[in-house]
């Protein structure tokens, strides 16, 4: 397989040169020429206005030839403000297991951040770090992120690639999969190796967790998946572990989108919903925006985050970012405390995979009790103050 230029059609407009992530196209005698750096990413095929660039296939490779070239398990180590995100350590945990099962190496890709953060990834289980040090990665921007990752994957050919199913991972990883022409499974909650075929079994909830599906990617590599945060256990930390850090250059990472500004928003007690161990959520049953003061107080006491049902957001009692459910966030904390939430299907699909669900509601027939581990039928304005008082006593506050 190779990429060729039809010299007769090429008018030397240089569009392909600008598009190439590998500097693999140059202008020779007014025509595009593809040099040995070509990684066959096919970007130029879609940008050429004349349709002068084409893919030449020399007979089909068999499946095994194609997939067996790919080796190693890779994870994307997401960083925010220069700090590696918790989900990266979780990916190293599951990545280590998969790499051991396949008897191969575990590598991490770190875009931006310091050498120190790269060292930490090794201590958490990585054998190799592909570290691209550049300020352009300080703020998340889809194009440079996806371009450099496409380049790395095409060059090093990992067999498995995992990223966190975070806003960042779920935004740019699909671009990478589309370009590389491989499968991507969203928001996996379990991953294992099929002992017979060596394929990665990617298990994910669909329809809000009412159905689980096992997805495979049998003929394309790498097998790519985003993994739901907080589901996998971090790997073992070993401060003596040794690994290799490979500094990767990054030239020509242009971007059409520009990040003008990054704004942090906090609304009182701010803990990221999708990373919280405990979520205290309020719904229409609060009857009043003031109810969220109680919700917040309980959440703070437990070191948790504040969630809400759609009804409370629609009433304007709390910002949208707190909404759990079908048109909000899907969460799976260790403990989910639903206060005054009746439990419409649209809410349940966003939280029913939580480990433990505590429901407090006046109505004994509220559907929320169908998914609850512990149910309290009662007035939340009686229950919550008592609960807060008791917890304070427990904690000696």
């Amino acid at each position, binding site marked *: 397989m190779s990429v060729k230029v039809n010299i007769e059609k090429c008018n030397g407009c240089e569009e392909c040169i600008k598009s190439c992530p590998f500097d693999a196209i140059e202008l020779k005698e007014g025509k595009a020429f593809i040099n040995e750096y070509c990684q066959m990413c096919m970007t130029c095929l879609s940008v050429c206005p004349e349709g002068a660039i084409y893919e030449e296939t020399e007979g089909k490779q068999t499946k095994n030839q194609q997939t067996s070239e790919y080796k190693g398990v890779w994870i994307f180590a997401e960083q925010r403000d220069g700090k590696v995100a918790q989900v990266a350590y979780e990916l190293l945990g599951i990545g280590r297991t998969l790499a051991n099962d396949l008897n191969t190496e575990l590598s991490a890709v770190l875009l931006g951040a310091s050498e120190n953060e790269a060292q930490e990834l090794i201590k958490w289980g990585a054998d190799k770090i592909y570290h691209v040090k550049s300020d352009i990665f300080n703020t998340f921007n889809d194009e440079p992120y996806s371009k450099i990752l496409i380049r790395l994957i095409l060059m090093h050919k990992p067999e498995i690639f995992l990223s966190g199913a975070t806003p960042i991972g779920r935004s740019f990883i699909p671009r990478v999969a589309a370009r590389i022409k491989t499968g991507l499974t969203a928001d996996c909650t379990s991953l294992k190796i099929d002992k017979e075929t060596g394929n990665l079994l990617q298990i994910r909830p669909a329809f809000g967790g009412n159905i689980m599906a096992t997805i495979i990617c049998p003929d394309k590599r790498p097998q790519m998946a985003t993994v739901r945060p907080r589901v996998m256990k971090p790997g073992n930390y070993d401060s003596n572990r040794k690994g290799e850090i490979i500094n990767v250059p990054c030239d020509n990472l242009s971007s059409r989108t520009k990040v003008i500004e990054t704004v942090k*928003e906090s609304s009182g007690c701010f803990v990221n919903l999708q990373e919280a161990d405990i979520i205290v959520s309020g719904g229409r049953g609060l009857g009043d925006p003031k109810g969220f003061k109680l919700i917040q107080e309980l959440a703070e006491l437990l070191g948790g985050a504040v969630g809400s049902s759609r009804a409370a957001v629609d009433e304007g009692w709390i910002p*949208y970012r707190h909404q759990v459910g079908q048109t909000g966030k899907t969460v799976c904390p260790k403990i989910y405390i639903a206060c005054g939430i009746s439990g419409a299907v649209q809410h349940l699909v966003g939280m029913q995979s939580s480990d433990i669900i505590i429901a407090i509601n006046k109505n004994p027939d509220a559907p929320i*009790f169908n998914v609850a581990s512990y149910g309290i039928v009662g007035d939340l304005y009686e229950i919550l103050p008592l609960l807060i008082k008791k917890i304070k006593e427990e904690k000696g506050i």
Partner: protein
Amino acid sequence: MRIIVCIKQVPDTAEVRINPETGTLIREGVPGIINPLDLHAIEAGLYIKEKTGGKVTVISMGPPQAESALRDAIAMGADEAVLISDKAFAGSDTWATAYALSMAIKKIGADIIICGKQAIDGDTAQVGPETAEFLNIPHISYVRKIEHIDKDTIRVQRLMDEGYDVIESPFPVLFTVIKELNEPRLPSLKGKMAAKKAVIQKWNAADIGASEDNIGIKGSPTRVKNVFTPQARTDRKMLEGTPEQQVEALIQELRGLKCL
């Protein structure tokens, strides 16, 4: 401004009942609706048209029944609709779906492509960004506010975990929207009339020039190996008594779980 909105027809979960024995959704006889987040995408398209002028084309890939979702979009105010439907598309995963959508979008021509962040049945949020990559254009995910739009650029807010980013892009661009962006309008009487009369264009794989290697099962890198129902919760405990007793019982449980 040439605006294309991509929508998907999904089962209406408000009408879906859960089978109490198996815990699965009973989908039979459930009416199809426009995916809720796609309503916000249509609204965004109409809003941009009102600001800059232009035309809103709504497209959907799906079975013939998806035509009713497209008519609903016209009732909201979209100018025209195209149904991309072919048995050859059956079994398409996100990669093959994004490929087909990109081929249709190329045929129509667009400055702005708008998608809902994700569909409520698949929950992948992948088709939007994948389509942008196939079109070789930038994309912006999770748009919650359009700050500015003129003939050359668009500036929007992208919702992130700890706040938001302000992003600017030239055209063409694809963006995916979240609920916070707007309040979808209801169909007007005039719109409903237009929807009745509208001729929905129907394109098959050949019409959009899709290569058969890239669509349907054959073009899909991923396969569903099996589907199963997660174990239903069987451990429910109702805490009875006075509020004090209920809270005391809960504290006991929390202590047992080592959360205190």
